[in-house]
C-alpha cells in the first residue's frame, strides 16, 4: 500500500500552516521551557491589524542535537516577520550571545513548483549542553481569515505553553481545541477596558513523534484553532468566519474572480471529446479522462493566486495546472455539456477537521469537482491521473466536501469510503516444478485503488531500477532469488478500467527436496505478513490507505511420477473488518489453492490492535502450510 498523495502535495492552503515538523525529532536531548504566543487584534475603521508576538525558550539537555540551533521561520505574502531577536544564554559562563546574521531564502519543494513562501534562516550561536536559546519575533497577519492555530505540543517536550489573544469589544472570536483530552489546559477570560483577553495555559506537554502508517500529526497533537467570527461597527455586525456560510461566501467571492476569457476554446474541446457520446455518464467520464491525460500537475502558490483558479482557457492552453485549476476546467467543461457540476473544497485525509467545527481555510487544502448524475454524487479529482471515473481520489475518502451549488448556496457531503470490492486484485498463478526449480506463470488483474497504486509505483518508484528489480522489491514473490521474465503491463491510462500485469517466474532454492519428499509452499505471495503491530510501543491508530480484496487461484501441476502425500486443511479468519480464507483442492493432476484476503476498514483503532494481530498471526500460520509430494 503506497501513500499516493505523497506525489501530490495539495498545498493549496498549506502556506498558512507552516508545519514545524521538519525536525520532527526525538527525546530528551532538547526541550522547550516555554512557548508563548500573544495575539493582538486591532481593529480600526474596517481594517484589521493582527500581530502575533511569539516567544520560544529552549534548552539543550545534551550536546547530541546541536542542529536544532539552525532555525527557519517562514513567511509569505499574507504574513510579515518583524523584530526577530534571537539569543543564546550560557548558564555555565553567564554569557548571552546574540544572533547577528539573518538570511532570507527560498526553498525548492518537490511538490510546489513556485511558491511565494520565503524563510528567514539563522543559527543560534554557541549552543552546547546546558545552553538556553530565546527567540522572539512578531508575525503580522494581513488577512483576517488566517488567524491560524497554536500547537500546545510540538516535536520536543514543552514545559509550558501559553496562548493569549487580546481583541477589542466589537470583535468576536471563535475557537476550538483538538486532542487536549490528555493534557490539562487552563483557560481564563479577562475583560479589559477596551476588550477581552483569553488565555490558554498548559504545562509539561510530551513531544510528538510520528509513526509509520499513522495519520498526520494534527490527528494526535494537542492544538487549538482560532478564528475571527465577526466585528461590529456603527451598530452593524459584519461577518468574517462566523460559520460555514461565511467561509463559503468568501470562497465564492474569490471563485468569482476566475478569468473566463476565451471559454469558447474550452467549450470546443469539451464538445469534441463528447460529441459521439450520448449518456451523461459517458460524457463526464470522457471529460475527466481528457483532463487526467492532458493536464499535468504543476502547482503555483502566489498570494491570493493560491486561491483563485486560473482561467480554464489558459490552463487548457498551457496544459498544466494545480488542483484548483483542474477542478475549474472540469467545472467549465462538464457544465458546458449539460452535466451540472460544482466547485468543491475539501481537506485531504491529512486534515482531521469538519467545516462546522472550525469554519476556516485550515479545514481544506484541496479542490475537486462534484457532479450529480442520476441522483448520484460523483467526486472528480483532476489531480489523480489514474483513478477511474466514479471513484474519488483515495486520499479524499471519508472527508467532508464543501460543494458550491451557487454563489449563495452550498452543501456539505462526505466522500464515501470505497468498498473493498472496488479495489480488487485477481491473481492467477500456475506453478510447475521442474528439476528442483519452480517455474510459474502469473497474471494479476487490478481495479480501483489497487490499480492506481500499482501504476503510481510502477511509474514513479521504479526510478532507475529495472522492471525486474522493481517487481522483486514490490511484490516480493517466492524469495529474493525469484527471477521475473516476460513482464507485460497493459496500458495505464484511466480510460482503462483494469490493469493487467503478467510475468513468468523462476524460483530457485524454494522447494525443499529431502530424500523422496518435496515440500512446497504455494503461498509465494505473503501479502500482509509483515503487518503485525507492536502493541506495547505503538501510540496511534493504524491508517489503511484503502480497502481492498485480493483473490488468488494458484494451480500446482503435479509432476509426472509424483503422488501427493499432504495437503493443508482449509484455514479461515473472519474478523471485524478483515479476514482471509485459504483452501486447497486436488483434481485432475493438479492442486488448486484458493485464497482470498480482504480489508474493509480505513483505520485500525488502538483497541482493535489485539484483534488485528490475531488476524495477522493466523494468516502467517496459514502461510506456513506446505504441500508434500513424493516420488
Amino acid at each position, binding site marked *: 500500500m503506497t501513500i499516493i498523495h505523497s506525489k501530490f502535495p495539495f498545498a493549496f492552503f498549506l502556506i498558512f500552516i507552516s508545519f514545524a515538523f521538519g525536525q520532527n525529532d526525538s527525546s530528551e536531548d532538547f526541550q522547550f521551557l516555554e512557548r508563548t504566543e500573544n495575539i493582538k487584534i486591532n481593529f480600526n475603521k474596517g481594517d484589521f491589524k493582527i500581530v502575533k508576538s511569539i516567544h520560544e525558550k529552549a534548552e539543550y539537555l545534551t550536546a547530541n542535537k546541536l542542529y536544532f540551533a539552525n532555525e527557519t521561520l517562514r513567511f509569505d505574502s499574507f504574513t510579515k516577520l518583524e523584530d526577530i531577536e534571537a539569543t543564546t544564554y550560557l548558564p555555565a559562563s553567564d554569557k548571552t550571545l546574540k544572533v547577528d546574521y539573518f538570511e*532570507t531564502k527560498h526553498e525548492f519543494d518537490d511538490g510546489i513548483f513556485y511558491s511565494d513562501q520565503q524563510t528567514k534562516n539563522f*543559527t543560534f550561536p554557541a549552543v552546547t549542553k546546558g545552553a538556553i536559546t530565546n527567540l522572539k519575533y512578531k508575525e503580522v497577519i494581513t488577512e483576517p481569515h488566517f488567524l491560524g492555530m497554536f500547537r500546545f505540543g510540538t516535536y520536543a517536550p514543552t514545559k509550558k505553553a501559553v496562548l493569549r489573544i487580546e481583541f477589542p469589544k466589537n470583535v468576536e472570536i471563535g475557537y476550538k481545541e483538538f486532542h487536549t483530552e490528555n493534557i490539562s489546559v487552563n483557560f481564563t477570560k479577562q475583560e479589559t477596558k477596551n476588550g477581552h483577553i483569553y488565555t490558554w495555559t498548559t504545562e509539561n506537554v510530551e513531544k510528538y513523534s510520528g509513526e509509520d502508517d499513522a495519520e498526520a500529526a494534527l490527528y494526535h497533537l494537542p492544538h487549538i484553532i482560532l478564528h475571527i467570527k465577526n466585528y461590529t461597527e456603527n451598530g452593524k455586525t459584519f461577518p468574517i468566519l462566523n460559520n460555514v456560510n461565511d467561509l463559503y461566501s468568501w470562497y465564492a467571492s474569490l471563485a468569482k474572480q476566475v478569468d473566463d476569457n476565451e471559454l469558447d476554446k474550452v467549450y470546443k474541446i469539451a464538445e469534441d471529446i463528447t460529441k459521439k457520446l450520448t449518456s451523461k455518464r459517458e460524457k463526464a467520464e470522457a471529460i475527466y479522462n481528457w483532463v487526467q491525460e492532458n493536464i*499535468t500537475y504543476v502547482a503555483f502558490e502566489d498570494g491570493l493566486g493560491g486561491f483563485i483558479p486560473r482561467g480554464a482557457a489558459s490552463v487548457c492552453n498551457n496544459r498544466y495546472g494545480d488542483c484548483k485549476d483542474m477542478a475549474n476546467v472540469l467545472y467549465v467543461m462538464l457544465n458546458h455539456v449539460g452535466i451540472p457540476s460544482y466547485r468543491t473544497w475539501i481537506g485531504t485525509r491529512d486534515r482531521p477537521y469538519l467545516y462546522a467545527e472550525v469554519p476556516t481555510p485550515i479545514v481544506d487544502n484541496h479542490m475537486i469537482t462534484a457532479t450529480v448524475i442520476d441522483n448520484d454524487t460523483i467526486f472528480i479529482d483532476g489531480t489523480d491521473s489514474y483513478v477511474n471515473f466514479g471513484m474519488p481520489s483515495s486520499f479524499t475518502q471519508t472527508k467532508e466536501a464543501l460543494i458550491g451549488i451557487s454563489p449563495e448556496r452550498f452543501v456539505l457531503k462526505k466522500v464515501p469510503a470505497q468498498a473493498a470490492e472496488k479495489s480488487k486484485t485477481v491473481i492467477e498463478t500456475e506453478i510447475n516444478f521442474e528439476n528442483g526449480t519452480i517455474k510459474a506463470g502469473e497474471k494479476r488483474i487490478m481495479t480501483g485503488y489497487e490499480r492506481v497504486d500499482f501504476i503510481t509505483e510502477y511509474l514513479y518508484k521504479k526510478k532507475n531500477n529495472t522492471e525486474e528489480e522493481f517487481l522483486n522489491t514490490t511484490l516480493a514473490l517466492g524469495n529474493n532469488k525469484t527471477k521475473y521474465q516476460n513482464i507485460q503491463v497493459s496500458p495505464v491510462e484511466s480510460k482503462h478500467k483494469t490493469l493487467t500485469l503478467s510475468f513468468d517466474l523462476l524460483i530457485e532454492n524454494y522447494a*525443499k527436496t529431502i530424500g523422496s519428499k518435496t515440500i512446497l509452499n504455494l503461498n509465494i505471495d505473503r501479502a500482509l505478513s509483515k503487518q*503485525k503491530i507492536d502493541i506495547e510501543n505503538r501510540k496511534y491508530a493504524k491508517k489503511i490507505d484503502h480497502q481492498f480484496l485480493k483473490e488468488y487461484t494458484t494451480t500446482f501441476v503435479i509432476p509426472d511420477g509424483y503422488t501427493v502425500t499432504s495437503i493443508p486443511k482449509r484455514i479461515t479468519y473472519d474478523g471485524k473488518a478483515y479476514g482471509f480464507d485459504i483452501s486447497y483442492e486436488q483434481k485432475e493432476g493438479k492442486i488448486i489453492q484458493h485464497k482470498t484476503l480482504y480489508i474493509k476498514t480505513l483505520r485500525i483503532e488502538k483497541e482493535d490492535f489485539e484483534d488485528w494481530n490475531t488476524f*495477522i498471526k493466523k494468516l502467517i500460520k496459514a*502461510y*506456513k502450510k506446505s504441500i508434500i509430494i513424493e516420488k
Partner: protein
Amino acid sequence: MKSKRNIYMKKIIVFMLCLCTSQAFSQYYKEYNWAKKPTLHKLSEKEAKESSVGILEKYIVEYKVPTFGNQVQKFETTHTIARVLDEKGIKTHNTVYISMYDVIDIIDIKARTITPDGKITLLNKDNIKEVKNVEEYGDFKIFAIEGAEKGAEIEVLYTLEKEYSAFGRDVLQKSYPIRKVEYNFIYGEMPGRIKAYNAKGEFVEKSYNKKTGKQLVLENIVPMIEEEYATPDANKTYVAFQCFGPGTNVTDSMLWNNVVTNITQGLFPETANTDVASIVETILKEQKTDDYTKAYLVDDYIKKNYTIVKNNNAQLSDIDYILKNKSASELGIIQVYAHFLKAANVEYMPVITSNVYEHKFDSAFFNPGALREFLIYIPKAYNYIAPNRIDYRLSEIPPSILGNTGIFVNNKKQYNFYKITQKDPDYSRIVRNMNISFKEDMEYVQINQEQEYYGHWAMSNRAFLNLAPEQSIKEFEDYLTSSGIEDKVVKKYETKNQEMKQLEYNIPFLVSTSITSESLLEEAGDSYIFQVGKVIGTQSELYQETERINPIHMQYPNRYNYEIIVDVPAAYEVEGLESLVIKKELLNEEGVQKCKFESNYRLEGNKLIITIEEFYKEFEYDISEYEGFREVINAASDFNKAAILMNPKE
C-alpha cells in the same frame, strides 16, 4: 612586463581584424538558433517505449576577449529538445530551472512545444519567475513549459553571459536516454583545456567562425542505472574545462598551489588561541602523549560545542568570530580544529577531496568544483577526523570518502595527492553468536544472540541510536534484533558501549537479544521445516538481468563471523543439512582470497553447530570480477534460504 605587452598587441590585432572582417569574429552563439519550422523527430521502436527521449542536448561555452576592455567574457548557450511520451516524461521536462549563479546578463531564454498535430506553443516570457537565494544554490529563473502533452517535443534554448571564471563543469548524462549530445567549447586564442569523463567519445578541434574550439559529439547516451555496490552518480558522463586570459600560461600545479595557499590560510597557526589552549588543558587532563586519544577528545569536544552553518555569512570563516559564536562554515571549522590540535600538540594534515559517491577527484585536471570535503588526517593515529560528520568521531576514513584521491597538506604547506584508503582491513567486522532452541512442543523457536559490531558498523550503530529520530530508531532496533522474521517477538534487547564517545580504539558496540518466532518453523505433515537461514536476517541480493555498468565499490572492507548453535529436540532427527554447506570465493591472480562466503556445520550430540565466515578484504573490484563478486554476495542470500527438516524419530 612581457605578457602585458602581449595582451596589448593581441588586442590591437583583434581590433584591426574586427574592423576588416567583423563577420569573421562574431560569436558562434549569436548565429545559433533553433529551427524556424520545427517538426517532430522520428522515434525508433525502442525510443517510443521510453517516458521521454532527449533528441538533442547542445551546449556552447564561448570565451571571448572583448574588443574594448580587458575582462574576458563568457557566454553559455544550452539548447535541448526532448520528446515526452507519458506523464512521467512530461513531468521530467515541463519545469525548467535556470541557475543565475554568476550570471551578468540573460541574452535570451526561449522555449516552445511542438505537439504531434503540429501546434506550436511559444513560452510567454512574462511567466518566467524569479526565485532568490534558494537554499545553497543562489538565484534561479524558473518556468513551466506551456502546451506540453503526450507525444510533444519540448524545446528550450537560452544564452547567458556569465561573470568570467576560468573553470566549469557540466554533467551530460541524465535520467532519460539522449540521442545526441553536442558540447562546443570555444576559446579562440586563449589557452583553453577541456576533458571528457566517462564518455564514449573524444573532443576534436574545430573552428567556430575562425575561432578555435573543441567539440564532443556523443550519440545514444543511456541513463545511468542505480546499481548496488557502485558510485553511479560519480561515474556519469561529464566534462570539465579551464580557460585563462590571453597570453597567460597557467599550469595545474600553479592552480593546486594557489588553492592550497588559499585554503590553508589559518590552518597552521603559529600559536594556539589562548582560550582554546586552556580548554584543551581541561579536556585532555592527564592525557598528554597519545595522539589518538588527544585527537579523539578534541573531535568529541568540538562536535559537542560547535555548529557548522551553511549560509552566506562571511564571518563564519573568521576565527575570532567562530570562537566567540561557536558557529563556523565547513572550512572555518577546520581552523577551529587547527587551534585545538595545535594546543594539544597533535600533528595533523588537512585533506581536501570530494565525496566518492558524487565525484571522483582528478589530480591531473584542476577543477575547483571537486574541492568539496575537508578532513583532517592524524598521521600518528592513521585515522581521520571528519569535521562535518556529527555521526563520526576520529576513525578510519568514512565510507563517503574511502577510495577517492585527496590533497594532503603538511605544516610547511607542501601538498601531495594520495588515494585515501583504509589502514586496517579488519577494522569493520561483525561477530554473532546464536543459541537456538524449540519451545512448547515445537510451537515456536527461541533465539538468544550476542552480537559484536566493530569499526564503521559500531560507528553508524551508535550514531543511529543517539542521533536519529525516534521513528527511525524503532526501525533500527528491528534490524539489530534480526530483520526479516515477520512474526518476531523481542523478549530482550540490551546494548552496551552505545555512547558516541568511546576512547578505547575500536571498542565494539554490543547487542544482546532474545527473540521468539513461530513462522521460522513450518509444518510438513509430522515433520517440521526449520528456516534456519532466516535467523541471519535479510541479506542483499544482486540481480543480473542487464549488463553491469559500474565497477564494484563497497562502502568499506568487511568481515562477518557467525556461529549458530541449534538444540535439536531429542525426539527429532535432522535432515537436509547439505543446504548449510556453501562456499563461494573470489581469488586474485596469486590465488589469494579477495572475498569469500563459507558456511558449514557439525553435529555434536544433539547440537547442530553452524559456522559462517564471510569477508571482503577489498572494497573495490574490477567490472570483470563482477560475476565472482556477485556469487559471494549472493551466497549469503542463498544461506538465507537454507532450511532443515526435522523428522520425528521412529
